[in-house]
């Protein structure tokens, strides 16, 4: 990481309180580097995993929310599994992504949250993921119309893609969940 001067004055206390409430004890990190060395995507990150944990410990929310790392993390849980202090690092990445979305920060990897949106949109509509619809929605949103055409066609020809969606009974409950059920009381 570049030489940076971090002052306790620009520590985001609310962010630290949020991590505490979710049992993500970033202060327990002693920078052993086991998380970074085991991370399968680490070569593609701008901030490596141990930097993320340390910056979180310093309450440096803004740097983190603008990073590529939070979007490139695949949630494989290797870091949290191997952390000798059992820091919930994958859970930390979840908090960071959710905060970035809530704050409307332009994601450094725009296609990745668009994919998540398309995936969740499919669940919201049908209660389950309908793959063709989800993929088409992602392609339109991301503008990546040409990517994976051959693969998609191949999967289609092999009968791997269900052509017609099927809606579950109880989609109203699903819509309630997506409308923030339980968050009425300001969580």
């Amino acid at each position, binding site marked *: 990481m570049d030489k940076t001067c971090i002052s306790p004055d620009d520590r985001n206390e609310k962010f630290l309180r949020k991590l505490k409430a979710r049992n993500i004890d970033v202060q327990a990190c002693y920078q052993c580097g086991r998380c970074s060395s085991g991370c399968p995507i680490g070569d*593609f990150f701008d901030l490596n995993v141990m930097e993320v944990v340390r910056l979180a410990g310093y309450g440096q929310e803004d740097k983190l929310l603008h990073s590529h790392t939070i979007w490139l993390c695949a949630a494989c849980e*290797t870091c949290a599994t191997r952390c000798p202090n059992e820091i919930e690092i994958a859970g930390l990445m979840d*908090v960071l992504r959710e905060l970035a979305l809530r704050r409307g920060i332009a994601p450094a990897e725009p296609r990745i949250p668009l994919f*998540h949106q398309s995936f969740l949109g499919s*669940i919201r509509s049908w209660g389950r993921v309908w793959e063709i619809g989800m993929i088409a929605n992602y392609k339109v949103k991301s503008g990546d119309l040409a990517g994976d055409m051959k693969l998609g066609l191949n999967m289609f020809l092999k009968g791997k893609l269900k052509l017609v969606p099927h809606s579950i*009974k109880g989609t109203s*409950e699903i819509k309630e969940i997506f409308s923030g059920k339980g968050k009425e009381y300001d969580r």
Partner: protein
Amino acid sequence: MKLSYYPGCSLEGTALDYDQSVRAICRKLEIDLVEIPGWNCCGASSAHMTDHETGLRLPIRNLLLAAPAGHDILVPCAACFQRLKAADKALRVDPGFWDVGHYKPDFNILHISSFLAQPEILAAMEAKVARNLGGLPIACYYGCLSLRNPRITDAANWERPETLERIMTALGARPVAWSHKTECCSGSLTMARPDIAEKLVSDIVTAAVKAGATAMVTDCPMCQANVESRQSGETHAPVMPVFFVTELLDAAITGTYPLKQQKVHLVSSGVLTGIFSDAAMKKEVSA
């Protein structure tokens, strides 16, 4: 034996054949699968990665649907399994937070290979094998989510699991010792960053080849689709078919590997069709 069954969305689409083989195997083992009525998507990685509460409320709904029957829940998909386990833990800690009055079911959430690798089930399957897999050198590939995080999954052996190896050995295949059996294939990034998926899959397949494997077997539908589809076709042809554990079980127990199933693979399943071909049959008879 009766089990609640949670297939998950992949098993209605890209991994439809996984669903069919799970059901076929359970029929042969006289396990009655009762699909959870009106189940919804578990939210997979996309939900918990972007919205903590949605990521738990989606699988929680499924647990509440399964609770009245009280049977253990069988889950073939690694991602669904991990999300249902996470939801179960969250609910037990604080049902009130999730607007649930009472939650103390005594069911277990079972991932398929851990379930099938239990000694008595393994013995029952072994006794039914009509055609063994002829020493097929195979790399058992677990990926991430049936194992990690063990604080969620309760996996007993998350760095060096052996359930798939035990099943493959019972079928007469020869599991290889290799380095990448619990490495991530980046399934959740495969659409948005195929370049990353290609790199990770290439590393995994290279490791399997180096260990002498000619096929891979998995119990995760994302791994199966991702590892078959992201083997780079530009520098070298795809070499590594990825089978589902129940696909191989069904083939060995029925003694056949039908054409319809062979055609489902994006990478040639020739190593298996060789074992089940008439020529191989004859060779064994004459030997």
